[in-house]
């Protein structure tokens, strides 16, 4: 087991280094000069040069890359070109909001997807099945930039139950979480259904029923835990995406999370913030995938902890 975990962690770290380097070099390839952003176009040449030297932008690219990596190792992401604030502070300010939204969206997705998937699988080719899968298709097809304003119109404007946007009050999270959750639930419900349908035909379930378990007991005790294993991988990927900042949903609902931070930074060409936000999102993906791998290996006895001999 330690070997398995170590291998996964090392591969995650290698992936992270790759992402950090890729983001660094890509950002430097984008046209535009951070000095222009900070000092404006009318700045004096001497001031431009002084700031360039101060920020270390006069150094060769490989040296800048090395300096960036060593700074990152000390959790120093630099400062925002616009607000002048340390980027770590900006990230720490936004991460709780994204975490909050992601968790609620995930819970909503599971609450919707589990019964739908179960119903569709156990009543295959019935109205329940078609209804559930119709909902799934609907959920997957509606883009969040349309679903969001639609929910605002109904939930906030017509019913007046929720605020239109922002993060004020306990109920502010519901509409953005529903927007994210329904799209996620649709994919999850389809996955649960197909996975469950596969399991329901297995011999061990017939045995369980033959031993006297009711259909429901057989499904909940034996079928569902086995069917949820592939769902776990999907869930991990989805959660990674959510924690990385649901850019569109956060923009529509003015939710002050990582996604909104990234959009703002891209619009303002605040390169260090874009760099840090992308890095943060990548780290989240890598971390969640690592966790999913470990969890999967722990739950599924067929996975070899020792790795190839």
């Amino acid at each position: 087991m330690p070997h398995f975990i170590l291998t996964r962690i090392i591969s995650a770290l290698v992936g992270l280094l790759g992402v950090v380097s890729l983001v660094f070099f890509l950002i430097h390839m984008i046209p535009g000069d951070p000095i222009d952003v900070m000092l404006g176009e009318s700045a004096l040449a001497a001031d431009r040069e002084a700031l360039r030297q101060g920020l270390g932008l006069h150094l060769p690219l490989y040296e800048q890359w090395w300096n960036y990596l060593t700074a990152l190792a000390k959790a120093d992401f630099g400062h925002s070109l616009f607000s002048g604030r340390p980027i770590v502070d900006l990230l720490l300010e936004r991460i709780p909001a994204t975490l909050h939204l992601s968790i609620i969206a995930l819970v909503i997705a599971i609450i919707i997807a589990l019964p739908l998937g179960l119903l569709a699988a156990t009543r295959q080719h019935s109205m329940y099945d078609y209804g559930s899968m119709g909902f799934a298709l609907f959920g997957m097809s509606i883009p969040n930039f349309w679903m969001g304003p639609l929910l605002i119109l109904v939930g906030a404007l017509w019913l007046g139950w929720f605020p239109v946007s922002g993060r004020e009050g306990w109920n502010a999270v519901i509409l953005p979480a529903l927007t994210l959750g329904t799209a996620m639930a649709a994919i999850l419900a389809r996955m649960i259904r197909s996975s469950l349908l596969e399991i329901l035909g297995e011999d061990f379930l017939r045995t369980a029923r033959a031993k006297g378990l009711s259909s429901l007991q057989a499904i909940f005790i034996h079928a569902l835990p086995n069917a949820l294993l592939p769902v776990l991988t999907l869930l991990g990927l989805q959660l990674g995406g959510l924690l990385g900042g649901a850019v569109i949903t956060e923009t529509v609902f003015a939710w002050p999370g990582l996604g909104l931070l990234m959009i703002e930074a891209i619009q303002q060409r605040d390169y260090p913030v874009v760099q840090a936000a992308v890095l943060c999102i990548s780290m989240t993906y890598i971390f969640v995938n690592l966790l999913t791998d470990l969890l999967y290996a722990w739950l599924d006895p067929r996975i070899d902890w020792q790795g190839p001999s």
Partner: protein
Amino acid sequence: MTIIWFFIFFISFAWGCTESAPESTIRIGLAVAPTNLDPRLATDAPSARVNRLLYSRLVDFAEDATPIPALATWEILNSTHYRFHLIEPRPTFPDGTQLTAQDVQETYRSLLDPKTASPHRSLFHNISRISTASESTIDFFLLHPDPLFPSYLVIGILPANLIAMNHPFHVDPVGSGPFLFQQRPDATRLILKRRNDAQLIEFVKVLNPTVRTLKLLAGEIHLLQNDLPPELVTYLSENPSISFQHKEGSKFSYIGFNHQDPVVGQNLVRKAIAHAINREQIIQFALGGRARLAQALFPPNHWVGVSQLEGYSYDPPRARKLLRQAGFTGERSPTLIYKTSTDPFRLRLATIVQEQLQQVGIHMTIHSHDWGTFYGDIKAGHFQMYSLAWVGLKTPDIFRHAFHSQSIPPLGVNRGRYTDTLTDDLIAEAERTSGANQQQRIYQSLQARLLETLPYVPLWYEDNVALSTTAIQGYTLKPDGNFDGLLHIQWATSSTIQPQIVRQTDS
């Protein structure tokens, strides 16, 4: 166990939510939040507008953009020596101390310090020395005469003692303006307190214009100013629960050309384009009538503005004739690339211009890029023609930055690489002249010359619009779109919320 899980789930709804401001808070919706509350560092319009509320400044502008005293009056002791006298009673900082000449001196000294990395430093590079003659007298000594110098002194004044302590003004602003910084509960919200009556004003950033509109309709925000697509402005202005104001603005939209390009580098082609664009129709149908035709960088009501300039009327036959004169006859027609951003409204304008140019035989391809790439291309001169706007122009020094042959990037913002000896001479002559009337005359000649040589095709000055719920009253629009109207905004008493006051059109 299930109950515990449900409990955790419901608790998590409330977890981390930010606290609401008191009910009595007046909320303003913004498309872009102010990013930097240090006036020495802020360059974006929202920060500049909020900083005007937090800090007081030496000089302000009248409606015609002439510099007028704000904190101080001034006298010109000689062409390189300006003396400013602080007007009594002087404003106070939040700790009760009065603003002094020392604060002014330290603000400008720190701004000139390269370590501050102020984007405004280049504007003040002409200052050789600043000294204080008394607690309320400041002397500015210049390297060279500059009659426009007082117009530059609009930077908010910071307390000297906090400057010395390297206080983080960008996140914790301390000024002597009419508002106090109260709180920034999260990245999308900023709360200020009005000094004279403790009224709280909250700026709420909502990026999406549709959601901003819905928030206004739901009463979650009380005022929106500009930054809305024309169709949403029209929709809201027709809503009986919304009060609508619009006022002539100074945001100047134009089409720029690359003067080194073999096609648009020809004045005849640029003139043909100017005659081919039906600006009146665009204003009427695409901008909802909320703009006025522009013939020059500054509107006629600006102190250097010219009202009698004759612009390029919509005249397709004349445009075709000019193209023929430029050598585009028969099968040979100009093919141009028009660069713009990805903003849906700017794209729509581009397609209208494309259609209108097609009518006179100019084939135009639209290249739309994200803002950074677009702006980078413009600065680098990688374009034939493009559309942009100048926002918040006040002082005529812009003529040197935008049109002088020595202001080609990176030395200035002459992005079209426009060179004209007469223009250079007029700019230099205006800068040498000290009398306001003489300066005005030269700048007016300069604008006539620019209209003749067309580095830009002037399009229009966009109006400012304000949309508010009937729950508030007293807000007035300013030509440059600043938030000074918040000084007088207040809750409407129930007797004043009547349908007859819903429409307040001030045009």
